């Protein structure tokens, strides 16, 4: 017993010494960032999604180029409103000049956004608008209704007048972006939610495994499906796997995102076409806006579309598109 107790005694001074070293190194990196530097906060939905990784990397690079310092935080999962609010509060306490936020839920962070703006912090929504959109100073995002419309129009044109039987692989019902893409697709295709062309729908949460599962089940129920709407490329790749496993061909799959894996799937023919988003542009324009605000107190306002580009190797008449070679050069993640 006593042998056990004796070595414990010197631990307290040891821990104190370790603490002092740690405090010193923390202070060093704190001061290394410079107190005069403009601080920008970025809060994304999650840390892991390659799309947000690209957003974060681009914002960090853009901030560095402008002599500003970027602090990136995120929620732990899609829907982690508490995590995003906590991140924003901590950024406010840190004294940032502006916050770029990709809200998980378009009404989930309104309170803390108001608090930030009252303190004179510029708040910009990236990728996903808040509801109401006027809650933030400005929004830099993909026009998801238009992205969905391009997907729908391409699928329609590519089918060339064949009677359509569509499988809708939706994301998460109720999420603003997901609903916009869904509605845009229907608009581009020229149908409504209850049209007989829609064979069935599945909820994928934008995940590949659920996309595959959903497509498998829809193919079981409706073997005549010949067109597929997908919320994003992981869902599309899942659908393609299900189609291949079922030994089907001649099914037109459309998608949205513009990730490198997604463009590759278009190139290999698994997916017919995708609509590319530009997270890099969102990040750069957001950082530029905060830097400009820091210099001249000038605030941006309104919605700024960062573009949506149809990518396919099977172009159709009347729809401007780029091929996959261009796509692979400009894809993200």
């Amino acid at each position, binding site marked *: *017993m*006593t042998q*056990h*107790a004796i070595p*414990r*005694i010197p631990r307290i001074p040891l*821990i104190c010494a370790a*603490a002092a070293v*740690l*405090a010193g190194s*923390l*202070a060093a*990196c*704190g001061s290394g*960032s410079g107190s005069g530097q403009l601080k920008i906060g970025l809060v994304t939905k999650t*840390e892991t999604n390659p799309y947000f990784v690209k957003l974060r990397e681009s914002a960090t690079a853009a901030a560095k180029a402008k002599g500003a*310092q970027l*602090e*990136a*935080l*995120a929620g*732990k*999962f*899609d*829907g*982690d*409103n*508490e995590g995003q*609010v*906590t*991140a924003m*509060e*901590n*950024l406010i*306490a*840190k*004294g940032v000049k502006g916050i770029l936020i990709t809200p*998980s*839920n378009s*009404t*989930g*962070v*309104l*309170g803390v956004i108001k608090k930030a703006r009252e303190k004179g912090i510029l708040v910009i929504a990236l990728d996903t608008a808040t509801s109401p959109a006027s809650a933030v100073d400005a929004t830099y995002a993909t026009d998801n209704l238009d992205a969905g419309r391009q997907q729908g129009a391409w699928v329609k044109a590519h089918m060339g007048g064949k009677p359509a039987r569509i499988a809708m692989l939706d994301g*998460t*019902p*109720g999420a603003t972006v997901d609903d916009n893409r869904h509605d845009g697709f229907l608009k581009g295709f020229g149908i409504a939610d209850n049209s007989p062309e829609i064979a069935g729908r599945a909820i994928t949460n934008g995940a590949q495994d659920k996309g595959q599962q959903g497509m498998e089940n829809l193919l079981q129920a409706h073997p005549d499906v010949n067109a597929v709407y997908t919320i994003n490329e992981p869902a599309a790749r899942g659908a393609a796997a299900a189609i291949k496993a079922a030994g089907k061909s001649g099914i037109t799959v459309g998608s949205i995102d513009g990730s490198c894996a997604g463009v590759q799937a278009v190139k290999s023919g698994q997916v017919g076409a995708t609509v590319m988003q530009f997270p890099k542009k969102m990040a750069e324009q957001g950082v530029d806006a905060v830097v400009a605000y820091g210099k001249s107190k000038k605030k941006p306002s309104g919605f700024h579309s960062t573009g949506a580009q149809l990518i396919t190797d099977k172009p159709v008449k009347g729809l401007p598109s780029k091929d996959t070679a261009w796509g692979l050069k400009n894809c993200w993640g």
Partner: protein
Amino acid sequence: MTQTVKPPEAPARPGMRTLAWALRTPSVGPLFALILAVVIFSVATDTFLTTENLSLILEQAVVIGTLALGQTLIILTAGIDLSNGSIAVMGTIIAGKLAMDGGAPAALLIAFAACTAVGLLNGALVTSIRLPPFIVTLGMLTVITAATRLYSESRSYPVTSGLLLWLDTGIGSQGFTYGSVLLLLMYGAFWYALTQTAWGRHVYAVGDDREAARLTGIKTRRVMLSVYVIAGLLYGIAAWQALGRIPNADANAYQNANLDSITAVVIGGTSLFGGRGGVVGTLIGTLIVGVLRSGLTQAGIDALYQDLATGVLVIAAVALDQLTRRRARV
């Protein structure tokens, strides 16, 4: 309790005696870690040690802190609750959805009642059919999550009612809220109930050795059932705290809250084997997580290190618990 292990030279060395006492009292280690973290961040950054920031950390702790209070009670009986976050989310959706049609007080009461009822159901399954709490609450987590999504119709419900948002009301200019005060009051009340009442001693006894407790005449089933019911009510209060924090009832929220609450309890020095620990440690554990998150953000350190540090603390806390148990057994 552990006097038998008193080392022979202890009376001559008061420092040693203090150390032995510290090792026997589960909340001393966590308290030391909390103070250490606060000192480090206060030295390292100039934005950490402000009244506003400290009250913010407390405010950020209200939801997990309330869930962790119920979790502590259950873990003290050698149980575990994986369903607490989902029960609180259910509470937010019930209150948020019902309040849309007016009648916020009724909506809140129904949410409290529903959360308490799920707690009762958990407790009944654990005590009557003697199912392991891990399995019961794992099943309940899935059931409640799905039921909440069905009931919410995959929508989120913005909340505007003054009553539902009342806990976010500020006191003074430094950012303290009624929610923070309620959190501290609840911890005070449960500290009293656990340490100064017969019920509290029975909770520890049941957790330490259920059979021995039964043989001394404690109605073990009733004690355990009461713990689950009270925990359910606390999750209802956590739902109210959550609406104060974020005026939006969202079925996707708080997916990690169950594990976060277990983390707070374990860092706070309460033993997962039951019968040892207490709510003071849990409050400290909750605050340690909040201090790390805030401090590392202020210091500009990558957010993933916050998780890393928390994980290390969990393992350290359990290791310390095991070590102390081994000492006590000798």
